[in-house]
């Protein structure tokens, strides 16, 4: 069985919200998960790994502080926060490379690097040690596997997408159970009242 990309996106959004992220960040997590899945990378699994860390309880500790120098914080960086910071400040990349420290699941930074690439109208290269990924905003060249954590992560404007990954129309269900566990936190427990009133039918349909 596989999931449609739509199902993966919807599940990722609920899971990220259940993991304590704001709705706006949950939307970003969902789009990022879908973007990776559509390029044959298991974005769902990467997201589940991030949610397991429960960063949302102390988000400022996992958000890059000073953006002028090294992007780091007192604890490991959340790739979603590092990602949106990168995407929101795409112009910064045009002025020079960005170096981050201790980024969990750096593969999740790639969809945001792709946003930056589209805004800057040129490829962006993301490197951690031997792991290199390049995206022009649409296509992605990257290995099948990625590090769980990047001690250093270099993001720079430039590069060439040499071997674009094949596009996929389905997502892996590997992380489904894990993500569902987080998504479940967003569901209100059913009460008699909600059953009766919440959806609002209440008339006989046998007519």
């Amino acid at each position: 069985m596989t999931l449609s990309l739509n199902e993966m996106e919807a599940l990722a959004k609920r899971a990220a919200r259940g993991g304590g992220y704001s709705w706006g960040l949950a939307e970003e997590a969902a789009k990022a998960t879908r973007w990776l899945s559509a390029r044959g990378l298991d974005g769902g699994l990467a997201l589940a790994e991030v949610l397991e860390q429960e960063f949302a309880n102390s988000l400022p500790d996992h958000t890059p502080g000073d953006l002028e120098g090294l992007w780091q914080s007192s604890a490991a960086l959340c790739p979603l926060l590092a990602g949106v910071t990168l995407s929101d400040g795409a112009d910064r990349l045009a002025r020079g490379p960005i170096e981050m420290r201790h980024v969990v699941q750096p593969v999740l930074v790639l969809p945001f690097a792709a946003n930056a690439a589209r805004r800057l109208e040129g490829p962006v290269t993301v490197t951690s040690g031997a792991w290199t990924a390049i995206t022009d905003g649409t296509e992605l060249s990257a290995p099948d596997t990625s590090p769980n954590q990047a001690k250093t992560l270099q993001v720079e404007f430039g590069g060439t997408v040499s071997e674009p990954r094949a596009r996929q129309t389905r997502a892996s269900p590997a992380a489904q159970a894990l993500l569902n566990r987080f998504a479940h936190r967003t569901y209100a427990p059913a009460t008699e009242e909600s059953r009766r009133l919440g959806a609002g039918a209440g008339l006989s349909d046998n007519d």
Partner: protein
Amino acid sequence: MTQQSRHIARRDPAQVMRLKRLGSLHQCRLSFMRILTRRMAREGWRFTRPLFDIDDAGVGRAIYSVHGPERSYSLVAFAHDLPPDQRSDRVIAEAWDATFTLFDGVPTEEDIERLSQNVPLQEAGRISESELSLSRANRSVRLWSHVVERLAAGRQPDLEQIESVGYLMRTTAVYGSGKFGAADRETIAARTELQAPFQAEMLSVYLTRIFVRDLVEHMARIKGGDRFVRLSPVIARQLGIGNSTGLGMAPFIINHPILFNNWIMVREEAIARVRAIQTATPKEVALFGTLLQRSAVSVDRWRSAHPIQLDKLARLRADVLALEAHIGAESLLHDYPWNRLLLWSETALSEEGQELVASLILEPYGDSVDGLASCMADSNTDATVIDGAMRVKEVRALIEDRFGWAFALDWSAPEHCARAWYVSEEKLEPRMGERFEEPIADYEQPLAPARDAVAAYKTLADFGEDQPISAFLMRHPEHRHTIRRAQMSRIAPYSEVQDNTISATVLPIDMLRAKLSFFGATHFDPRSDRWVRICMYAGAPYPEDLTPETADLWVYPEGTS
């Protein structure tokens, strides 16, 4: 011949996007059902029924295929024997009279076998990338048995009963776009015939209507034997497919701001184009008059037992009379006739009547209007990417534009935030509850954009107006969804409902109607403040009668009231 000689702006979002008006919208030339029937006729789509294997108890399977210029699609239908006590329109139902999927192509035996294990289970089953929709329908018990009995006895059904219900079966959900494993929208979005919104879903319902006619005749034939007669084509044509839609659909128009904007903006653009026409031909005026009369028949057949709709219907009937009197007295040939008519309607008619006029004036002008159908989909995936360089003052200005009306509300007053939208653990479907009476606030879905916009606006006041919004977002990730919406509204002036979606008096049926009117639905019949029944394809030609001449105006009944 038409002349356009002055520019008339599209109506102001502040006027159009109020819930009361959205809840008064009517179908028009750009409705998704009409886009589909026009195309099927124009391109000469062929229809076949490769399988109809239904037993004497009405249980079995059938396949209806259509063959367009480039591709084929097939409705795979499963007919069941449903005990009456299990017949429920609610999304929480677990059994139905019939279940369906729209298959991408023509299914093999293996496909059908796989689908037979899954489609009857609906949400509890899985479909695949080869399927484009998943749906189910229940009989209208009253009308179904009446029609079966009459046809079995060699007689036609009673017209009054046909009119009072309008359909033999009603769908209770039509899922598409990747739901339950189906193909994603991206898979089909580039196909010309499915580029406009909801074309796969509309096709599945069109084919469902053919199946339902065949099934009712099949059951009557078994019951009546030699005495059986076929359903008269005139009556069959009047029958549509019902649909019962609950609250779950209401968040759609908030969750898809660009898509919903495109629907509204396209209709508003069409209205503006027609208003800019300086002189109309007698033929155009005559067509408008004829369709107004036929609309009056449709309005007359429109039944509802809900007090809100009863009141709206009474006013709409009065509006139709006023409109007929007005156009009898006024020439519609000269001096920007449609603009004059629309402006008059704003002074003389209810919102139901005004929107009927707005939809009807488009009818004589298919050449200027129909091409807009290709602008109704949402293909702008970059619209959701936040521009972090935008300055705080620009974002504040965008919020002022869309939500200025909301600044004066006291959002902590119970009446302004009485409701909360949430997803229930039980069925994972959106619901709406009472914030101050139920334990739901912690689970609230982001479906109150106006409240959230006001909160973000206030927090933005603490930031320097020339700072980039990215600096604000780093400090306030809780406002990220609001900033995104504000930026999207730059390119989508009709993206936001300009009303309070969590007030004590909000009527979710207004949101349902706004969406369903674009499908082309008629005869909105609210069953509560958050649940509505409608009719689809009533009057539409079946394949044997589908021609460019019959493919468009079928929504206006030809009978007399």
